Each structure stands twice: as structure tokens, then as C-alpha cells.
């Protein structure tokens, strides 16, 4: 990673420079005694990482961050612990190093910065695994989309299964085992060898049955404890 140091203290710059030289994941391109000089540089050049002091005369580290439209990753270097909360408001801030900085703590910050570059926050959303919200069933050579949320009950019917949704019922050539594997576990529960229910659709529970829509579904004794565990009981 290409980096720069911004710190008004010569000693602080020299120390970070030394810590960088002992770490092979980061390289120092330049260092600046003031935020203003650094801004001029950053307007013309790009870097991967800034080691930024907060407490600087005239123009603080936070002032600099507010000035940059698209700041690179930043590791704050400061003698003051009191800015930690403010630091959390900036997405670009990878870590917060309190002086005097040890090599061990510095290396940890660099590791954080390296991992940060693999999954930048702005792209994190697009890289998240997309949650499947629906199921396609084959009925008369047509693939019909059923949203999980609309499914009330799945009932075994010999070689077929009957999927009951809020508006319609679908008879599909499949098994309970197969459909159970496709349905999200947090939403669906097998309450009987012939019934899988959408637990969010339960209206009430009475003895060994649950009411979903206008269907009374039997609950087997062995499945009852798991059903009861799922409920937010008062």
C-alpha cells in the first residue's frame, strides 16, 4: 500500500516512517508537516493510506477528512484518546493509534488496512451474499415463482406436495424432504411428518394443532418442543 504521513511534529513523522520501514505491507511515498500541504498533494496524486495526526495547528486531521471528497483509507495517529468516538463517524478510518505507537500495534493496524482494502465499505453491500427470497416450482412445464413469505403451509400428498399460499394452492411432484431443504429454516418448521408450516403465519396454537389461515395443522408430539422454542412467549 502506498502511504503518506501527515503530522506537524517531526518526531512523530520520523517514528511512523521507522515503523513503516519495518513493515513490508506498506510503503511511504511522502510525508507532510501540515494538512494544507497534504491536500495540495492529494489533489494531484492518489495514495492507498494516510497516517493522519488529528491535533495540528490551523487545520486538524478531521478538517482534512472533511475536505477530501473521496478519502483513501486513514489510520489516525494521535496523543489524544478523546477523539475515538468522532473517528467512528468516518468510514475511511481504519484504525486509531495512540502515541507512543509500538511496532506490534502498528502492524495490527496495517493488517486491518489490508483487510479493509479487500472489502471496502462502499462495495460491501454489493458483495454480500444475496438472500434468496423465493422458490420456483414446476407445474405443467411452467416454472412458477412463489415468494417464501406468501407460503402458509406445505402438505404431503403421496408422491406430491401441496403448497398452500395466501391466494392459491399448488400441487407439485416432489417430496417433503426436498422442499424442506429449499425453505429457509428460520421461517419454516416441520411440525408433523406431513406438514411444514410458515411459523410467521401462525394465528394460534391449541393443544396439538396450529391455526394458519383457515387450516388447522396437526403438531406431532416430537415436533412440539421445537415449535414452542420458536415462539416469543410472554
Amino acid at each position, binding site marked *: 500500500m502506498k502511504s503518506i504521513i501527515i503530522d506537524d*511534529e*517531526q*518526531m*512523530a513523522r*520520523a*517514528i511512523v516512517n*521507522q*515503523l513503516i520501514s*519495518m513493515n513490508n505491507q506498506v510503503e511511504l511515498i511522502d510525508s507532510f508537516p501540515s494538512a494544507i500541504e497534504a491536500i495540495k498533494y492529494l489533489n494531484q496524486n492518489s495514495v492507498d493510506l494516510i497516517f493522519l495526526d488529528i*491535533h495540528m*495547528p490551523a487545520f486538524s486531521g478531521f478538517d482534512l477528512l472533511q475536505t477530501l471528497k473521496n478519502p483513501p483509507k486513514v489510520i489516525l495517529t494521535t*496523543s*489524544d484518546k478523546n477523539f475515538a468516538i468522532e473517528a467512528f463517524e468516518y468510514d475511511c478510518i481504519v484504525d486509531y493509534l495512540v*502515541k*507512543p*505507537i*509500538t*511496532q506490534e500495534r502498528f502492524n495490527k493496524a496495517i493488517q486491518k488496512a489490508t483487510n479493509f482494502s479487500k472489502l471496502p465499505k462502499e462495495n460491501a453491500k454489493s458483495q454480500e451474499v444475496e438472500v434468496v427470497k423465493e422458490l420456483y416450482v414446476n407445474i405443467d412445464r411452467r416454472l412458477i415463482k412463489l415468494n417464501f413469505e406468501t407460503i402458509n403451509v406445505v402438505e404431503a400428498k403421496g408422491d406430491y406436495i401441496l403448497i398452500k399460499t395466501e391466494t392459491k394452492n399448488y400441487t407439485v411432484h416432489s417430496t417433503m424432504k426436498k422442499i424442506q431443504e429449499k425453505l429457509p429454516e428460520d421461517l419454516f418448521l416441520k411440525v408433523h411428518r406431513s406438514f411444514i408450516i410458515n411459523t410467521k403465519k401462525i394465528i394460534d396454537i391449541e393443544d396439538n394443532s396450529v391455526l394458519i389461515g383457515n387450516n388447522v395443522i396437526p403438531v406431532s408430539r416430537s415436533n412440539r418442543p421445537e415449535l414452542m422454542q420458536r415462539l416469543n412467549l410472554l
Partner: protein
Amino acid sequence: MKEQPNLLYLKEISGGDLAFENQMLEIVKKELPEEIKSYENSLKENNFKLTAEIVHKLKHKISILGLEKSYQIAIDFEENLKKSNLSLQIEFEEILDSMINFIKNV
């Protein structure tokens, strides 16, 4: 026994690089007396805000010279100054004296 300035931190981060250690000591030797002078002047003028800023700078040098307990005193003194309070002034100035003595002999 009072905490004494030392080179433990500098040696730890230098990785045996004597040129770096010497460079750091040269900076301390040059800047410390200047900063102490500024500190004394701003204090004379009762400029607590400026004094707190100078203490903030001195704080880093205190930590670099391995003075861990003194560093905490400096933090507290800086906070006191921000409230125009001179508590810990004597303790802080003792730290400065010990640093000056140390760099004269190192």
C-alpha cells in the same frame, strides 16, 4: 523511586537502527529546550490555551523517553490547563527537568 527517562521505547521501535535512535535524540535535544521556553512564556502570560497546546506537544516527547507514569501526569495537566487550572504544574515541571538532565548526558 521516581521514574527516569530511558531509551527503551526508541530501542524497541528502532530494531537496532542506531542512526534512527540518534536522529530521534537530536530532535529531542533541539526541540525540547525550545518547547520548554515556549511553555514558560505562555504560562507567564496566563495563556492557558496555548500552554495546554505546548504541553500536548511535550507529551509526545515524554512518552518517547519511556516515561509512562509521567505521560499520564502530562495528560491530566493538559486537561487542567484547558480549565485554567494549574494543578500538577510542579509535578509536570519536575518531569521536564528530568528530561533536560537526561538529554544532557545521553
